[in-house]
């Protein structure tokens, strides 16, 4: 057991990575799914072990192949990365519980092996990004995630051929983003002569005033912002989320952009250091307006959407705006709120996308108009959606409330007019959220079902995972010691790091 524990950081990555090609060999409906579920579950278990160990004993460093850093590649599990790993593998496992019937409905059985192989690769990539302590390794894992996610999104083509163009557009934009990150990492390497993140961070102050470093900051921030779907770099996200298979959407909504948020935090706070990021190069002034516009404008866009998945996708961009605001505040309270919202939004949004997936499963559509009267036909699913929607709005007892509370406390902490303005913007955006959720609820419940409408309640295999997420979100909205505790721990660690 000690072997498995002491290699936990790398095993959490290697197991799904090695599993992927094996999975591609499986045929049939059940085998690849079950295999993927088991591997994801193992990764989840390792992540939890890691998080417990890190929270008890401080950061864990793992040297790949026994090569000592800074020459070898180092995997580092610190409070932030362990926390994000738990989120990713947890969401992935939860979504997989749900996946079996849902995906069999949307992807040809003959392709399921490949589908789940790509799924495992995406999981590997995201876990790898969080745990690696090597800047170039980040790029590699990022591309593993990206390439597999293009494939996963394109798998939606059987339902809607626009999945193909969405995937292609994501490929173009995503590659540009990843390449920007590659350029940034290269420039950092040129200036510091090392790729180890801790090492770069050590040497950063001595060379921080040079022009290549500033260019590197620009490339990295913009590159990450593209992968993060920060407004206005979000153009790929709504289409990709709308046309991808439902479980892919649910999986990515909870994880893909969150990993990029992790990267943003990692670079801003660990590599550049808060003093440089906010004192020398004014990242607050750059990110804050983008966050505010995203929170407001994208919420308004969500109000007008006709497709439920697209509505939720725009809502995700708006929620990422909150996180951007939180990070740009450059305070410990802000950082806590941001990290907290990564967790809270992940669980709520995944739950919502799963309920929408169940509606699609039963009715074959995600057009809001066509879902009229679903409240009567699918009471459990619809009620799940309503509860999830409450979480998105931020009603007390939901995690949305917790993170909004922290965020508002954090912006008010500024104590100036910008702080009050931000608080108003956040409240305004919440009101928009009420409107777009309400619009859906109204149609689900108060409009009569169209003549001869299909669909009765979704099967239990879909309902139970949905409700796990919904009830889980309420659990974390009430008993907040887990999410708030680890978010605070991570924020303290990051602020104390330099």
């Amino acid at each position, binding site marked *: 057991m000690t072997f498995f524990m002491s290699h936990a950081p790398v095993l959490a990555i290697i197991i799904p990575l090695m599993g992927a090609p094996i999975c591609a060999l499986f045929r049939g409906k059940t085998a690849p799914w079950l295999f993927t579920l088991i591997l994801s579950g193992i990764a989840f278990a390792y992540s939890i072990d890691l998080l417990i160990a890190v929270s008890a004993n401080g950061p864990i460093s793992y040297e790949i192949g026994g090569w000592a850093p800074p020459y070898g590649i180092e995997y580092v599990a610190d409070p932030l990365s362990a926390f994000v790993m738990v989120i990713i593998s947890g969401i992935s496992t939860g979504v997989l519980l749900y996946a079996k019937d849902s995906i069999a409905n949307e992807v040809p059985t003959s392709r399921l092996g490949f589908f789940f192989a790509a799924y495992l690769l995406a999981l590997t990539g995201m876990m790898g990004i969080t745990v690696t302590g090597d800047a*170039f390794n980040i*790029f*590699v894992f990022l*591309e593993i995630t990206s*390439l597999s996610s*293009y*494939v996963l999104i*394109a798998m939606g*083509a059987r339902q809607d*051929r*626009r999945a*193909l*163009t969405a*995937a*292609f557009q994501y*490929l*173009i934009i995503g*590659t*540009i983003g*990843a*390449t920007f990150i*590659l*350029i940034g990492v*290269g420039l950092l*390497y*040129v200036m510091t002569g090392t*790729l180890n993140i801790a090492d770069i961070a050590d040497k950063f102050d001595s060379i921080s005033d040079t022009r290549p470093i500033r260019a590197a900051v620009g490339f990295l921030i913009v590159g990450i912002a593209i992968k993060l779907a920060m407004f206005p770099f979000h153009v790929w996200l709504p289409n990709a989320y709308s046309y991808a298979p439902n479980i892919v959407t649910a999986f990515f909504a909870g994880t893909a952009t969150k990993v990029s948020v992790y990267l943003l935090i990692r670079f801003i706070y660990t590599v550049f250091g808060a003093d440089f990021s906010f004192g020398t190069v004014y990242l607050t002034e750059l990110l804050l307006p983008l966050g505010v516009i995203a929170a407001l404008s994208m919420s308004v866009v969500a109000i007008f959407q006709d497709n439920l998945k697209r509505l939720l996708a725009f809502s995700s961009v708006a929620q990422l705006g909150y996180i951007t605001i939180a990070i740009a505040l450059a305070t410990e309270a802000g950082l806590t709120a941001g990290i907290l919202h990564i967790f809270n939004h992940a669980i709520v949004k995944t739950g919502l996308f799963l309920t929408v997936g169940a509606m699609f499963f039963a009715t074959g559509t995600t057009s809001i108009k066509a879902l009229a009267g679903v409240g009567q036909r699918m009471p459990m699913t619809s009620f799940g959606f309503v509860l999830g929607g409450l979480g998105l709005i931020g009603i007390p007892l939901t995690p949305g409330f917790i993170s909004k509370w922290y965020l508002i406390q954090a912006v008010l902490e500024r104590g100036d007019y910008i702080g009050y303005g931000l608080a108003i913007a956040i409240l305004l955006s919440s009101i928009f959220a009420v409107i777009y959720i309400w619009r859906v609820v109204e149609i689900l419940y108060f409009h009569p079902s169209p003549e001869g409408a299909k669909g009765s309640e979704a099967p239990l295999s879909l309902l139970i995972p949905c409700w796990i997420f919904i009830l889980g979100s309420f659990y974390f909205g009430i008993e907040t010691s887990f999410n708030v505790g680890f978010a605070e721990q991570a924020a303290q660690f990051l602020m104390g790091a330099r």
Partner: protein
Amino acid sequence: MFFDHFNYWIVVILMMIGLYTVMSRSNLVKKMIGLSLFQISVFLLYISMGKIEGGTAPIVSNAPDVIYSNPLPHVLILTAIVVGVATTALGLALIVRIKEAFGSVDEEEILSNEDNL
């Protein structure tokens, strides 16, 4: 100035050509070519950084005081090249599927097609 760093200028020019192609062409295949050019410019950037003037290839020899070029960027960029190839292959595969589904490889045409769905 220009000739001192002409390799970097080439990187920049290639990058601009690549990005401009991605921006301006609506033919998806041309877009992919632009994207590849853009990536390749970054490969050149990495390779240029590793070069040390007067340095030889980083092969162990017994001669004293040999200056080697830095091999690490070259190794790194091998990985990036693989990624680039994978991206291009995937992109082209998608283009084939798009052509099957929409009957066109022109983005403008596809978008106007989509509106009529």
